[in-house]
């Protein structure tokens, strides 16, 4: 064997050793303590800024594929929680994981699988859309950047704007660019901080459609209630850093003990006393013009009211259950006594 050959042989051995060492020491192991079907888990997550408590013992578990609305008044700790989940800042106490990776120890792994749209959607205004997305793709470790950028541009409807500078775009299009950079590395989990902030109604709907179309595990913060109703399957409400509600949207009303109401309009006046004697009816309010607002014990109340109308030969012009609005629930959960 010549000297050169020996030299190359040694280099090869070094390379193999190096890869082995990397395997052993540098690749973090996904912890299996958590069920894999759960994408985001926080356990007693806390964050203090000095004396101020931003997030206080937050316990949340988000399943794979869920689109979760993250609600709360301004300064409730939504953004802080999101920053912790993306590994931007570490928690003061407690732990969290995304797809089984710890948010402190496996920060790099987390950043690979999370697509993050920060609050206020920061972008390089002097870059061109395509250029910026290529940059984001390269940073995200996308292998075929050009192809992927094309895909993402199609997906977010940026085709006409791709040769413009980001600074020239309107707010709606900038938001799309922000979303595009968040999804460019095909992340498993999306964390979006106010993705529809400051957009016009059409743009809001487009962004929502996009989020739904992506179908990824999504945690999105907002304070627009309709948005939650339109996009999310589940709501998490926090207030002053504390978790105040965590439930599927349909069941949210039950949490605050909201009462069921039925609005009825009859063809002619009725005897209020008679209808009050029905089992499900709790209270009847006469609103004039044969319109009544009836408080019932359950959603089944509507049935017995229509039975009652049939039995008494009453014409029913309108019968609808008055939904408790999410706004109301939100208000009830987060209103404070210490008003000014």
């Amino acid at each position, binding site marked *: 064997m010549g000297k050169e050959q020996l030299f190359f042989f040694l280099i090869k051995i070094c390379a193999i050793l190096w890869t082995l060492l990397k395997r052993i020491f540098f690749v973090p192991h996904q912890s299996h303590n958590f069920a894999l079907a759960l994408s985001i888990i926080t356990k007693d997550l806390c964050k203090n800024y000095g004396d101020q408590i931003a997030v206080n013992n937050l316990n949340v578990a988000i399943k794979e594929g869920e689109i979760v609305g993250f609600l709360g008044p301004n300064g409730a700790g939504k953004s802080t929680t999101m920053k912790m989940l993306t590994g*931007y800042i570490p928690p003061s106490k407690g732990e969290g994981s995304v797809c089984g990776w710890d948010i402190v120890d496996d920060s*790099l792994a987390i950043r690979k699988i999370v697509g993050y749209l920060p609050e206020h959607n*920061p972008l*390089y205004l002097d870059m061109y859309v395509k250029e910026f997305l290529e*940059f984001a793709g390269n940073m*995200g470790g996308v292998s075929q950047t050009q192809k992927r950028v094309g895909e993402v541009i199609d997906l977010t409807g940026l085709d006409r704007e791709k040769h413009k500078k980001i600074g020239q775009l309107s707010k709606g299009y900038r938001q799309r660019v922000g979303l595009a950079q968040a999804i460019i590395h095909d992340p498993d989990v999306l964390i979006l901080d106010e993705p529809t902030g400051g957009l016009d109604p059409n743009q809001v709907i487009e962004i929502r459609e996009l989020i739904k179309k992506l179908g990824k595990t999504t945690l999105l913060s907002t304070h627009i209630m309709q948005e939650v109703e339109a996009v999310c399957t589940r709501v998490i409400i926090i207030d002053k850093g504390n978790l105040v509600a965590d439930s599927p949207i349909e069941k949210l009303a039950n949490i605050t003990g909201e009462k069921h109401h039925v609005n009825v309009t009859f063809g002619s006046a009725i005897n209020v006393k008679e209808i009050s004697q029905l089992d499900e009816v709790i209270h009847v309010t006469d609103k004039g013009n044969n319109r009544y607002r009836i408080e019932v014990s359950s959603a089944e109340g509507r049935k017995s009211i229509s039975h009652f109308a049939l039995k008494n030969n009453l014409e029913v012009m309108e019968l609808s259950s008055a939904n408790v609005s999410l706004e109301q629930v939100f208000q009830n959960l987060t209103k404070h006594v210490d008003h000014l």
Partner: protein
Amino acid sequence: MWTIYKKEIRSFLSSLIAYIVMGVFLLATGLFMWVLEGSTVFDLGLASMLVMFQLAPYILIFLVPAITMRSFSDEKKYGTLELLVTKPVSELNIILGKYLASLSLVIIAILPTLIYYYSIYQLGAPAGNIDTGAMWGSYFGLILLAACYSSVGLFCSSLTENQIVALISSMALCFLFYQVLGLFGEIQWLNTVGKSLRWFGLDYHYYSISRGVIDTRDVLYFLGFSAFFVVSTKLVFQSRKW
């Protein structure tokens, strides 16, 4: 790292700052070497680039901070730092990418002065009568010095959201390390303390390399100096986690 590097270079070249820096550097060195009476090569009567190499460190004290001032303060101000840091790239890679980009820009600004070298080479009597060793040593020293300035500039930029604060503080820090530390060595009553403080100055090592003798101690000093400030920048980065 190279993604950041490419992006930085591109943003330098698409903004005016790169051209201004190159223009000012070449203009200043050109004026002092060839035009302004009293300091030109002709007045000196020697085929050497001493004038440029004495002047360049001072010009760079102004120019390098101008290049580095926006690298992190802008990112902080517009919140794009959060975007960068939440991408799967390590912090050191981000810093090194920006560092190398600034350094490359300074080197690109210095490169055209090779024309001066050629001119003086031809002007020598006879042509080619020039201390080539000292010249290359000086270039090497100047690049190392620019590397140190860049790391200081980057560090100052990471401390603040304000470009101007970054610019002025890094200029002051560069001046301190280049000039002020050296002055301590001349204070009699400080004696050995002053001498050792002088050793910490950039100028001491710069002049040592300029002679054309590339001493490992000097090179190590420059590299260590840069590394110190790069690592400090990383610490500033991590301070958000404290």
